[in-house]
């Protein structure tokens, strides 16, 4: 018995280890000093708002609308959110929005990048034109698209009527059934150039010798793509999809400007909904609780994603 206790106690010696850490910190004090300003700024603009948001999520807005009079309600806000119908509606919208926007803009960007990778006359100009959606202001693009979709003056409606495809211009963004897909189309239009640029950059790093080797080995153009190019793009594709997914999850400008979440919440996604709750309806506590939930969800996704990525890296390193 005594020996067991002895064994359990023996390896627990945090003293020297902590002293080592402290000494390590002290030896690198100049390095810490260099990053200190950045850390302070981060604490002010990130850590404090996060803390404040979490804190706020346990309160409700007082009748005076003065935050100093805010009323503590515990987990009421969370309970209200999780039991409300709007929450599930908005969550479902967000998932559809994020999934379709990410997958389709990635697919379109990938295809365009492949098409532009071949040498042909006008390639440079075409490439420049295709980047335009991504470089112009999202606000401007949203207003332009609002007009393009407009049920009375929209160009798409006019063309459909002119060609005899429709009797009257469709209500793209004014009807519950079509508004979300219509906004997703705009989002894809705006984002695919990003995927295109990433994949084009990836394509340029495919080693020529590998493609030559495949050619000598007898691979056709399609087989060279499948066996050499495609596997080579795996990493850049993963990163692109992640960045797109995060950006889409956090989308705000396009849905907010084009529809403001309407009609009847049909195009609300999380961020627009939170914004409206906080700054449209002054329901800061509920909005904060929403933000905390969103934060937790994104952190969870991020955690698994980073783990998957570093798992790959680790495998590489071990090899």
């Amino acid at each position, binding site marked *: 018995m005594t020996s067991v206790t002895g064994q359990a106690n023996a390896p627990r010696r945090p003293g020297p280890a902590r002293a080592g850490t402290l000494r390590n910190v002290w030896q690198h004090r100049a390095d810490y000093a260099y990053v200190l300003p950045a850390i302070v700024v981060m604490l002010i603009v990130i850590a404090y708002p996060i803390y404040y948001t979490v804190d706020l999520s346990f309160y409700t807005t007082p009748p005076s609308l003065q935050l100093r009079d805010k009323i503590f309600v515990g987990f009421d806000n969370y309970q209200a959110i999780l039991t409300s119908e709007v929450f599930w509606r908005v969550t479902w919208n967000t998932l559809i929005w994020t999934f379709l926007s990410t997958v389709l803009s990635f697919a379109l960007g990938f295809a365009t990048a492949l098409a532009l990778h071949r040498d042909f006359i006008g390639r440079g100009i075409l490439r420049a034109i295709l980047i335009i959606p991504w470089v112009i202001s999202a606000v401007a693009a949203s207003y332009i698209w609002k007009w393009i979709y407009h049920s009375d003056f929209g160009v798409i409606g006019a063309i459909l009527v002119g060609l005899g495809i429709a009797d009257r211009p469709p209500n793209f963004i004014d009807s519950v059934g079509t508004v979300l897909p219509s906004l997703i189309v705009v989002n894809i239009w705006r984002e695919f150039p990003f995927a295109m640029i990433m994949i084009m950059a990836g394509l340029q790093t495919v080693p020529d010798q590998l493609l*030559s*080797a*495949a*050619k000598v*080995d*007898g*691979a056709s153009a399609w087989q060279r793509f499948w066996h050499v190019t495609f*596997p080579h793009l*795996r990493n850049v594709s993963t990163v692109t999809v992640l960045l797109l997914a995060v950006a889409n999850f956090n989308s705000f400008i396009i849905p907010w400007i084009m529809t403001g979440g309407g009609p009847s919440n049909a195009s609300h996604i999380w961020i627009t909904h939170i914004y409206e709750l906080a700054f449209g309806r002054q329901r800061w506590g509920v909005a904060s609780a929403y933000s905390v939930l969103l934060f937790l969800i994104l952190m969870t996704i991020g955690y698994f994603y980073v783990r998957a990525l570093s798992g790959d890296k680790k495998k590489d390193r071990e090899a």
Partner: protein
Amino acid sequence: MARVVLDDLMKSYGNFHAVNHVSLTVEDGEFVALVGPSGCGKTTTLNLVAGLLPITSGDITIGDQVVNDLDPKDRDIAMVFQNYALYPQKSVYKNLAFPLQMRKLPRDEIDRKVKEAARVLDMTHLLERKPRELSGGQQQRVALGRALVRDPAVFLMDEPLSNLDAKLRVQMRSELKRFHHDLQATIIYVTHDQLEAVTMADKMAVMNGGNLQQYDSPAQVFAHPANMFVASFIGSPAMSLIPLEASTVDGNIVLTGAEGWSLPLSSFNSRKIQNAKTRKVVLGARHSTIKLHKTAVSDAVPAKAYTVEPTGDVTFVQAFLSGAIVNISVPPNVDVAPDEQIWLEFDQERMHLFDGETEMAIKAD
């Protein structure tokens, strides 16, 4: 296996001729090295043979077939690349099997051939690994194996050893030589390392500026360089090339250095000079054919030692002579100091004489 004939091969980019009227024949089972400095057109030539680049004009024949317009896969060639070009996501087994799969061989035959190649190259235990799990030498062996499984008419190798460290390079050099010997394969091998070419090849094609300078066995190229470029490129340290003036003194032909000394020539060398069209003559001498004297000797010319580099076996002395740097090797016990006055005696039998204007070797007849 097959012979390869390049006939008046040209590859031009506008006015720039990367490969300029190159003709040579690689006999069946021969190991030919294309050697030259960076940008000399050797790799371009290899890519033309492989079909990775279209030729501008001329003909390439592999076996009995003119392959000018054939795709690489139809030329019955296999290629080994400088950075191995293994498919990183595929295991060694799948890398070896890939060219066979592309040719739609039956699965059991692929398996048999892959295992046979792995056995020949002693890498059966590596078959399940990914390329990144292999050392440089092992990767190189896999690349070789991928060429081998195809049983091609010609092996094309593009600087296959230059990514390896020095020790491994020497080891793989002998392995490759053995590989050639065992398979009696036709190999065209590109390298910038003249030592690789000299040690491995049956014949070497020395290229410079897109032009074929000389095509002969390493021994011949070494002993009878066709021009000053070949002379200076082949051999280490490089052959010393000393610009001199030929003149006749008392009916004998002598070479005069910038410092004013005269070097009498043997009758054989005198005859060469008489055939030459110019009085400007460049004397070429390898380090081992120059004798260093510390006192004046008849037929030796005065020079000043510049640097002394002991290497253990021999000591290399560099000296200034007639505006050129001369490399001399001496036994390690010879004690020479920089700036010391020395006398150099050239071996008349083994000296090379070049036309100072055309830079071509001067022939005796």
